[in-house]
Structures are given as structure tokens and as C-alpha cells.
């Protein structure tokens, strides 16, 4: 893959990973390692701990997530993340736009032949 494509893809992914994280937490609260594991199990998102933790702290600062400490059966307490009501609204908004956008782009690309 060309270098400028890689840079462009990383820009495109940023928003998608944010939406994926909100979507993941809509199902219930999770702690850091669980979030990293769930997201990195989806190869299309190409996330690592190095991208997830800064993202979590950014989403928290933006008021979309909050966190609480819970006792853990192994080791020190864990920080669990969950959606705030604002995060929930943001997820709804982003999901709606995501579907419209991906439908539109899919329709367009269906008429183009691409080497995958």
C-alpha cells in the first residue's frame, strides 16, 4: 500500500474507532483491557493498546464516557468505562450518519471496479 494511502486510512479509521468504542460500551461497562481485546479482535479497525487508551481518555474528557473503580479478583482495582447520557446521544447521532455515509459510498463504489 502506498504511504499516502496509509496516512489517509489512518485519518479515516480515527472516526470509525471512536464510533466502535462508543458502540462497544453501549452494551455495558468494560475495563481497559477488555476494550482493547474486543476492538483488536476486529482486524479492520487495526487498534492497539497504544491507540485505545489515549482515545478513552479523550472521550472521557469530552464527557462521552465516565469511569468508576471496581474491585478486581486479580490484582488492584480496575477502571471500568461506561457511556454517559451525552455519549449515548453522540453514539445515536454518529451511527445515523455512519449508516447514511456508508450506504452512499457503497452505492457509489458498487459501480466501480476495484482491485481488492
Amino acid at each position: 500500500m502506498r504511504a499516502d494511502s496509509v496516512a489517509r486510512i489512518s485519518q479515516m479509521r480515527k472516526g470509525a474507532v471512536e464510533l466502535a468504542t462508543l458502540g462497544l460500551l453501549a452494551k455495558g461497562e468494560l475495563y481497559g483491557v477488555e476494550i482493547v481485546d474486543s476492538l483488536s479482535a476486529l482486524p479492520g479497525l487495526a487498534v492497539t493498546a497504544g491507540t485505545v487508551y489515549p482515545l478513552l481518555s479523550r472521550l472521557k474528557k469530552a464527557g462521552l464516557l465516565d469511569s468508576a473503580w471496581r474491585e478486581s479478583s486479580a490484582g488492584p482495582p480496575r477502571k471500568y468505562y461506561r457511556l454517559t447520557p451525552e455519549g449515548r446521544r453522540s453514539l445515536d447521532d454518529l451511527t445515523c450518519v455512519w449508516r447514511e455515509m456508508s450506504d452512499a459510498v457503497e452505492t457509489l463504489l458498487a459501480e466501480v471496479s476495484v482491485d481488492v
Partner: protein
Amino acid sequence: MSDLAVKEYVERVRATLGNADGAADVLAELQAHIRDECQRRGGSDSATSAVLSELGSPEAYATAMRDAARGSTTADDDDQTLPQGKILGMPYDLRGANTERIMRRLWNPADPRVFMPRMFGVGWTINFGALAVKLGAGRPDDFGDEAFAHAPEWSVRAALGMPVVFAASILALVAVTWRTLPLMVPTHWGPSGVPDGWSSKPIALGLLLTVGVIPAVVGMFLAVRAEGSVRKRLAIAAVLTAVTTLALGITIVTVHDASGVSSSGNLIIAAIGVMLLLSFLVFYIPARLGVAAEWRQSLDSAADDGQYNGGGKQ
């Protein structure tokens, strides 16, 4: 009538944005959004006012757009840490330092990189937060902003006290030895630690006092003004600790070697080691104590609320 309302809304957004980066794009996007939404809803006056009221006040809209733009630039900085440029393969950055930029490089446990592009000048900076995580002293999200907010005041004062003690030691050492030191003192050491360059006493020691003492005085002044912010004060403490430790180390070696009897230039390497260790502790001790306080507080209140088992994931 509704056109006027739209015009007024856009104008107020424009006024709030001022000449911020990308203001023109924000305004173009806003106008397109209003036009599309109004059309979609039939273009009546009531549709227009519904669209505008959904957007909130023009000032709030402008602020949200500005924050979003700023957020995405810090995101770039976080994720890719685009250095401001490179010389001979080393990153350089000549933008001014502030608390956020210092903390993002010196104490950023969420970022796994131990070597960060330096905040000012050429080369790299050590991310002591990533080092703490690598050493198994915590998880990447253990030491957030709340940990520092919970740090006991004494630990922050101790961190700030260290550079004061070092700066005072430099002053005392120079004052006590001044009369007995020869006119020329060593200012450069060879690889084996033997002095191989000498300068006049007032210049050499004057420079050490300037580098070691003045920043500490200025830093303390800034720290007092930053009373409420633990992060800011620790950023100041870390930078000053590094500077004063090195200056004190060099002062000790200079004074010791000035007699010409023995050489101890290699002690500067020890001073660098001490500098790194103390810089780490400046962040780590308040963070560790802060997170412990956070745990006590939140687990206690969870137990009181009876929702202790709420997050029962094993």
C-alpha cells in the same frame, strides 16, 4: 424573515469564531447544513427556526466547533506525535512549552512510547508514565487526571521542594568555596573524567548559578500562582528537578576538581542517573498515592451504596 434569522445566526457564529483556523470551512458547512435541513423540512419559517434551535445558541455552536477542531489537533499529536520537523533523523520542536505539552511528553501512561519527541529543542524526552507501565507499576489508565487531583498536598510540595533544596545547595556550595577556589576552574572533562578545559571562576560559577538558581526562583513563583493545579505544579517540579540536579552535579564536580588533585568528571553520569530517577519519582509518588486515595474513596462509597458487586466482571 427566516432568511434574516439564518443570516443573524451565521453572523453570530462568525463573530464568536473570529479568525480561528478553519473558520471559513465551519461557516460554509454550517450554511450548507441549514440550507439542506430547511429544504428537507419544506423550507417554511417554522422549519427554519426548528433547525436553528436544534443547533443551540450560535455562541455554543461556534465554541463546540472550535473545540472539535482543537481536539482533532491534539489527537494528531497524541496518536502520531508528528514532530515539528527532523534534523539528522532526530525530531525537533521549537514551539513554546506549556503544562499540557510537558505532561503529554513526560508523564503520559496511556501512550506506550517511552521515548517521546522532545518538547523543546532537539532529540527525545523520556515518558516516565510509559516507563511506569512498562515496569509493571500500573496500568495505562490507572494514573489519569483524577489520580493527580487526589494526590496528597505534601507529595506535591515535596516534589516542588526538591529543586529548591538543590538550588540552595548550589548557592551554599559556591558561597562557601568561593574564596578557596583558584582563579581558573574546570569546565570541560574528557571521556575518562579528567578535566581538559578550564575557564575563569566568575564566568563558570556565574553560569552554574544562572542555570541552577534563577529557573528555580522563577519556577517557584509560577508554582505559587498555579496553587490549584497539581498537574501544573508537578510539570514545573519535574522540569526544575532535572535542571537543578544537573546543575548541582556539575557544581560539585567543578568545585571538587578545581584543586587539581583528583578528578571526578565521571560523576556527571551519576548526576544524570539521579536526575532521571528523581524526575520519575516527582510524577510517580503523587500519582501512586493519588490513585490509592481514589480507590479508597470510590470503593468505600460503592460499598456504602450497596452496589459493590455491580461491576462483577472477573
